[in-house]
């Protein structure tokens, strides 16, 4: 119970900071929106190309915005050496990890709703198989947030962290991008049966990264 309380304490702290600073609202959401709009303009001459490309473009927009959200999540820990405050707090490394990853995941979910609506409107996509889309989005978002949080803390103490985080995160989340895109494609094509193996891959990835992150985050926070 205390563990969950600590997770909530860290997550609510990060979400409160984001709500007040409005970085997510003023930078991350517009960035995701601009990516979607630019692709729409770039491919607009061939309207038949947009719907099949939509899942991939949607997840590219989410991935790029996720890098901003992850960077932001650890930048706030560097000001005033708040990171040392976290280390001194007595909180378990695992609960800090789950709290920070949960906060990033919530931000990404909100972003996905906004970008999703933009994709439906601009790319002429009809949402189908809502359950598959929802399961794939949840599992992929958790996988993205958890992976980013692990690598975010690893690079957190370094001056080159803003360059290093994308370099570390992008290769690591390739399975998430592949699985999420394929699951969305199958769902939007009206063949949800083909999507479930990809959803299972996303769930397995998320479980693995969350478990590894819960164990590794504490030592990484100490060493970074």
């Amino acid at each position, binding site marked *: 119970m205390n563990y969950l309380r600590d997770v909530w*304490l860290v997550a609510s702290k990060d979400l409160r*900071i984001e709500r007040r600073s409005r970085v997510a609202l003023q930078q991350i959401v517009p960035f995701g929106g601009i990516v979607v709009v630019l692709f729409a303009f770039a491919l607009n001459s061939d309207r038949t190309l947009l719907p099949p490309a939509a899942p991939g473009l949607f997840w590219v927009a989410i991935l790029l915005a996720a890098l901003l959200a992850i960077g932001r999540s650890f930048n706030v820990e560097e*000001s005033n050496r708040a990171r040392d405050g976290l280390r001194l707090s*007595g909180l378990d490394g695992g609960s800090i990890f789950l709290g920070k990853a949960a906060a990033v995941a919530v931000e990404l979910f909100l972003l996905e709703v906004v970008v999703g609506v933009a994709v439906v409107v601009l790319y002429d996509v009809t949402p189908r198989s809502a359950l598959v889309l929802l399961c794939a989005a949840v599992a992929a978002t958790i996988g993205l947030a958890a992976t980013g949080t692990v690598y975010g803390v690893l690079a957190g103490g370094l001056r080159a962290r803003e360059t290093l985080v994308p370099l570390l995160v992008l290769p690591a989340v390739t399975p998430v991008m592949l699985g999420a895109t394929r699951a969305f494609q199958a769902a939007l094509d009206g063949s949800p049966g083909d999507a479930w193996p990809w959803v299972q891959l996303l769930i397995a990835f998320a479980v693995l990264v969350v478990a590894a992150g819960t164990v590794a985050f504490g030592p990484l926070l100490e060493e970074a």
Partner: protein
Amino acid sequence: MLGRFPALAGVDLDIDSGEILLLAGPNGAGKTTLLRLCAGLLSLRAGTAEVLGVDLAVDRKRVRRSVALLGHETFCYDDLTVTENLRFAARAAGRSRSDADAALERVGLTRMANVTHGKLSEGQRRRLALANAIARQPRLLLLDEPHAGLDEGGRAVLDEIVRTAPAAGCTVLLASHELQLARQLATREVRIIAGQIHEPERAEVLA
């Protein structure tokens, strides 16, 4: 280690429970390093260190739960208010909201409760950092240049907190360049020079 040089070498220091120990010494002598080591923020490369009877090499986490560090930085979040920062620190240390609110009142920041850390003056930030430290109700209070940035009122608050700490079962390790102020609080003084502890005679301290 600082580059190729050890930040502390040959430190041999015992602190009794309830003591207010002043750690004096020139810049770069290793005062901050020693305090961060005692807080469990640094790990030992050699030697042994016990804080509150716990071996730092064995269980730093346990040490951290019982110590508080007032360092050069506040460890606070710019976009959280004074109350939010304080409650987060207190609750993370297993303390209640009322402990946080009591600490806020004690340092005289109540009227700034809803102001974000980023908008506070330097002195107010130091008061908040002090409140963060005492809200944890530590058994060992580590103070690194605690008088720096504080006005007269802030210094009076700090002095009262340090003086009353032993009665609350708290030991204080205080590193300072402001020796006149610090000596009025300390029950013992040691000097640290080039990473080594020198314990002066009482007469020499008073001179």
